[in-house]
């Protein structure tokens, strides 16, 4: 496979209305956009799950489910990774602290609510995740690195 050019290439840019279930629309469009981008099947599945969860968070927690407020998705391919940004207009928000990390034993014991897996899934699906806020724009950046181009830095295809 030929190594891509060093400058990021925009593979797709689109909005989805903030309506329940539209995370699957975002997931499908990202899937189409990264076709031929060199991801393994496992990487693609992990990216799809991360994109869906980030978009769902944007719809529900960022834009409060207001259908007229879009979630923007941008798909980029740079020198050694596929990068997807998911932006809502909900501004800054607090991330869950360590005490709120999902613990299945606590959930089964009724000490935590059954929900609360979204951020956990995102963090375990991609190689890097970061969020930034500029005014109302809150962006989650998801990175999947091309393993075949890695320099042996320890990534083995699954985040540990």
């Amino acid at each position, binding site marked *: 496979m030929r190594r891509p050019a060093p400058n990021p290439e925009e593979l797709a840019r689109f909005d989805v209305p903030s*309506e*329940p*279930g*539209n*995370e*699957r*629309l975002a*997931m499908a469009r990202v899937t189409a956009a990264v076709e031929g981008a060199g991801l393994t099947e*496992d990487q693609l*599945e*992990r990216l799809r*799950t991360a994109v*869906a*969860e980030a978009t*769902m968070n944007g719809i529900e927690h960022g834009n409060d489910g207001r259908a007229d407020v879009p979630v923007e998705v941008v798909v980029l391919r740079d020198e050694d990774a596929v990068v997807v940004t998911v932006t809502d207009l909900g501004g800054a928000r607090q991330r869950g602290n360590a005490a709120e990390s*999902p613990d*299945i*034993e606590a*959930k*089964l014991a*009724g000490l935590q*609510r*059954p*929900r*609360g*897996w*979204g951020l*956990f*899934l995102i963090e*375990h699906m991609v190689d890097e995740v970061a969020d930034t806020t500029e005014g109302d724009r809150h962006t989650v950046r998801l990175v999947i690195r091309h393993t075949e181009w890695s320099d042996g830095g320890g990534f083995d295809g*699954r985040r540990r």
Partner: protein
Amino acid sequence: MAGDADVVVRDLAGTMVLELHGVVDRGVADQLTKAYEQGRADAPARVVLDFSDTEYINSSGIALIVSILGRARSEGLNVAAFGLSDHYRHIFDITRLSDFIDVCPDLDTALMAPGQRR
């Protein structure tokens, strides 16, 4: 985006089999609860979750599975699953669902008593 989902309950030799078709997200919460309650009426010995026709599970779907697992455990029912793709099997591992649900390779194995499964 409309949910393409369905939950079907079957009784197979005293085991409640819940087939989760299509999308497993919050949209199937009522269907799953009703199917479980319908299955309970047959006094099953255990529960099997059939993911062989599941296309997508999100974090809300994971929460639903946790809820059903918790309810089954509280009622003394072992829970097994089969039909998971490699990706969702990985998710069952990292969420530790697989510590509490026997993830089996096929229906026949899932229908076995817990001590007989390989």
